[in-house]
């Protein structure tokens, strides 16, 4: 389904390459089937999940299990499972739309996501034939429910530091696992756990552990701040007997599975962030239209409109970036042969290709969700603090998103790290480009930007990439291998790279829409793009400046800053006005629209 893109785009290449609108997949490319799948999911969430949210929040998990089975009957659990193993084997856009629509269910979306994502995918991608045949048909229908057990009390971000051990018994038939896995989603009712343990103390390995195996138990239910609809417990392994055929992937290569599954988990969280943000906007604008103060609906106050405008523009940019990333995956995975799909290594390479895009969409998608939830509460005023209002739950539910699947701090550090690694390996000509830029800057004369729609935005995206290169090149030159210790600078660079990806995604999406149909229907898309690109550019400028100041002193500092000014010079956009225009459309529609 969906249009295929014209060429395979390399992961991370966007920072130095100029892309065309046809290089990316956008929500405007979705097919009628995609829309129907989204609608079925939405109707299921509204019709079946929301009526029992109070029960779910109250940890009555028989409702969760029942809902998962119903979802399985509708096919909502089998999208990523190949047809030969009882699934539907649909494209990544379909599974992403399901994830997006589930977001409204709050904690239950985490239950669903853990099952279809990090719970089932390790077997889909890395299971052998026998494991796939045994487990996938049951997971695709919801007859069995999956969970993912990586985190331990002492190892969160440092996943490979896990202490759980696995020892082969004397008969050579079973591995005996000992250890504790902490904060495991779905643990109250999951039948299958993907567990990581060290064989011989240092061979980090994944196992498929069934709940009914001797020695497997769970601790008490955790008392959490949010996502209370999901079950979170410790999984306790006490001489747990795991048959040796349940080793998942290669012994000692568990990290390949762990990291790649996290990559997938990350972009899925970003997709969920989009769904949550759209719901947050809807709740906020409906309330703002109905709430009157000084005999006036508060949505007519421009400071409320500013919030709605910012929320919607940021949602647009994130939505564009996330579905662009989903499109990249779809294309890369879709191009794998049947044979390659059976080869864990090939699959891992395909997923790892877009590690940078996964991390950055996770960071920005979850921060978008948090920002929108926060502003939605703010617009509700005191009522937003009361549990009768959905935004109260949304606010609590959103907080964890920035923490799990790799904290946003870890993900920020991963972005420049991965870029540098690719540059060193010669996969991305980053250093060459940085050098060429330094020469270019010597004689750079600021360009005249044509007075045509989106010309300014194209110019700003182009220059933002250069600013990123300038700052990164300088920091690399100054700190060399020690750059990895300069975490503040790395986070700045991560933000610049991510902002570039988002602004470019919004721009290309809008251009693509205009190329398809040049009409007033695209006005809102243009406004979103203008606002986001301008604001992102301002943030990039600040991050770059801080980085340069931390990297240079004296005359070199002054020279570099003045070189950067050549790149930042532009006719600024009046974002206040544009946000009011955006807000007008949102207030009328009473929801996010494009």
């Amino acid at each position, binding site marked *: 389904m969906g249009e295929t893109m014209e060429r395979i785009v390399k992961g991370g290449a966007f920072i130095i390459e100029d892309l065309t609108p046809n290089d990316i997949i956008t929500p405007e490319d979705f097919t*009628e089937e995609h829309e129907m799948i989204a609608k079925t999911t939405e*109707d299921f969430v509204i019709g079946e999940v929301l009526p029992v949210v109070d029960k779910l929040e109250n940890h009555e998990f028989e409702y969760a299990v029942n809902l998962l089975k119903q979802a399985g009957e*509708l*096919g*909502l659990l*089998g999208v990523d499972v190949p047809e030969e193993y009882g699934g*539907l084997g649909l494209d990544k856009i*379909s599974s992403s739309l399901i994830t997006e629509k589930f977001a409204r269910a709050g904690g239950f979306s985490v239950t669903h996501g853990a099952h279809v994502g990090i719970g089932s995918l390790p077997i889909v991608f890395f299971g052998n034939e026998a494991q796939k045949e045994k487990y996938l048909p049951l997971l695709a229908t919801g007859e069995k429910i999956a969970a993912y057990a990586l985190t331990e009390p002492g190892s969160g971000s440092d996943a490979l530091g896990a202490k759980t051990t696995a020892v082969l018994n004397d008969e050579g038939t079973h591995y005996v696992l000992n250890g504790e896995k902490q904060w495991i989603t779905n643990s109250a009712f999951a039948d299958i756990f993907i567990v990581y343990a060290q064989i011989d103390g240092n061979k980090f390995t994944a196992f498929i552990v069934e709940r009914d195996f001797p020695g497997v138990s769970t601790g008490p239910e955790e008392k959490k701040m949010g996502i209370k609809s999901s079950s979170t417990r410790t999984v306790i392994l006490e001489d747990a007997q795991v048959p040796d055929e349940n080793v998942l992937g290669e012994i000692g290569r568990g990290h390949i599975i762990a990291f790649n599954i996290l990559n997938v988990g990350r972009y899925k969280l970003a997709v969920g962030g989009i769904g949550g943000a759209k719901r947050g906007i809807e709740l906020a604008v409906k309330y703002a239209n109905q709430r009157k103060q000084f005999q006036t609906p508060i949505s007519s106050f421009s400071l409320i409109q500013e919030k709605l405008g910012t929320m919607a523009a940021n949602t647009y940019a994130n939505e564009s970036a996330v579905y662009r990333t989903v499109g990249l995956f779809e294309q890369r995975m879709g191009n794998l042969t049947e044979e390659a799909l059976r080869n864990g290594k090939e699959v891992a390479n395909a997923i790892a290709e877009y590690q940078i895009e996964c991390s950055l969409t996770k960071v920005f998608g979850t921060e978008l969700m948090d920002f929108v939830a926060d502003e939605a509460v703010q617009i509700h005023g005191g009522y937003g603090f009361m549990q009768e209002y959905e935004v109260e739950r949304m606010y609590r539910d959103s907080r964890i998103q920035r923490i799990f699947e790799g904290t946003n701090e870890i993900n920020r550090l991963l972005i420049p790290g991965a870029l540098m690694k690719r540059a060193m390996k010669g996969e991305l000509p980053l250093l060459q480009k940085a050098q060429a830029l330094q020469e270019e800057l010597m004689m750079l004369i600021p360009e005249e930007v044509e007075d045509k729609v989106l010309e300014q935005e194209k110019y700003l995206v182009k220059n933002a990439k250069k600013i990123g290169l300038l700052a990164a090149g300088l920091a690399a030159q100054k700190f060399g291998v020690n750059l990895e210790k300069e975490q503040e600078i790395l986070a700045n660079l991560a933000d610049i790279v991510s902002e570039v990806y988002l602004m470019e995604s919004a721009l290309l999406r809008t251009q693509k829409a205009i190329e398809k149909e040049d009409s007033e229907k695209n006005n809102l898309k243009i406004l979103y793009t203008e606002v986001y690109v301008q604001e992102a550019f301002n943030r990039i400028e600040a991050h770059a400046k801080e980085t340069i100041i931390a990297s240079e002193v004296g005359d070199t500092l002054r020279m570099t800053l003045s070189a950067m000014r050549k790149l930042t010079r532009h006719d600024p956009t009046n974002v206040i006005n544009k946000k009011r225009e955006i807000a007008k459309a949102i207030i009328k529609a*009473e929801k996010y629209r494009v």
Partner: protein
Amino acid sequence: MNIFVLLKSTFDTEEKIEIRDNRIDDEAAELIINPYDEYAVEEAVKQRDTHGGEVTIISVGGERSEKQIRTALAMGADKGVLINIQDDLEEPDQFTTVRLLQAFFEDKEVDLILAGNVAIDNASGQVGPRLADKLNLTCITTITSLTIDGGVASIERDVEGDTEIIETHLPLLATCQQGLNEPRYPSLPGIMKAKKKPVDELELDDLDLEEEDVAPKTKTIEVFLPPERKAGKLLEGEVTEQVQELVSLLKHEAKII
């Protein structure tokens, strides 16, 4: 059994109504299957699963109605027919729809036609009964239960809150009321199968009709939104004073007594 479902695309219940040039503007609106027609689709699929045969969805509308037809196919119907009048007719009314459907059914073998009791947009509730009249079919409206056994239909229908029990013979046209069944969600396998099911598109020519044959019998003079509700008035004072004031207001201001 040859089962047909009359299906109308309507505004999503969440949509806002906007009026432009004395018409309801539907360009930006999300469309759905008229909720009462959903009961009809569900019932048709269930009857087909019990008795065999084929379910055909028929809709009079424009290009965009194809999506609602596809949704019905995803729910399990076998094929669809779209009578597309988008380019030929400006403001069709119930007469137009019935005339088109009459022409369509002229050469069809029919056992059962199911329709919604009413569409949630114009809410005339006329198309089903008027079509039955033209086709000379038995018509039972607002049904809440349907059991078919050897050509005999046992039906319960909703009569202003009471239930009437009827027995009749096929062929039959029935309109469906809330309570008849619980429409299913189109499943993902259903959606993928629907992609391959046939949807025929017919225009006036294909039905041997001219524009004047189907020209509406009614004319819409004006379309307007209900006036915004004004703020209420709180009467003060002793009860007797309040009553007096209320009566006076109803007489002189509201002029309803």
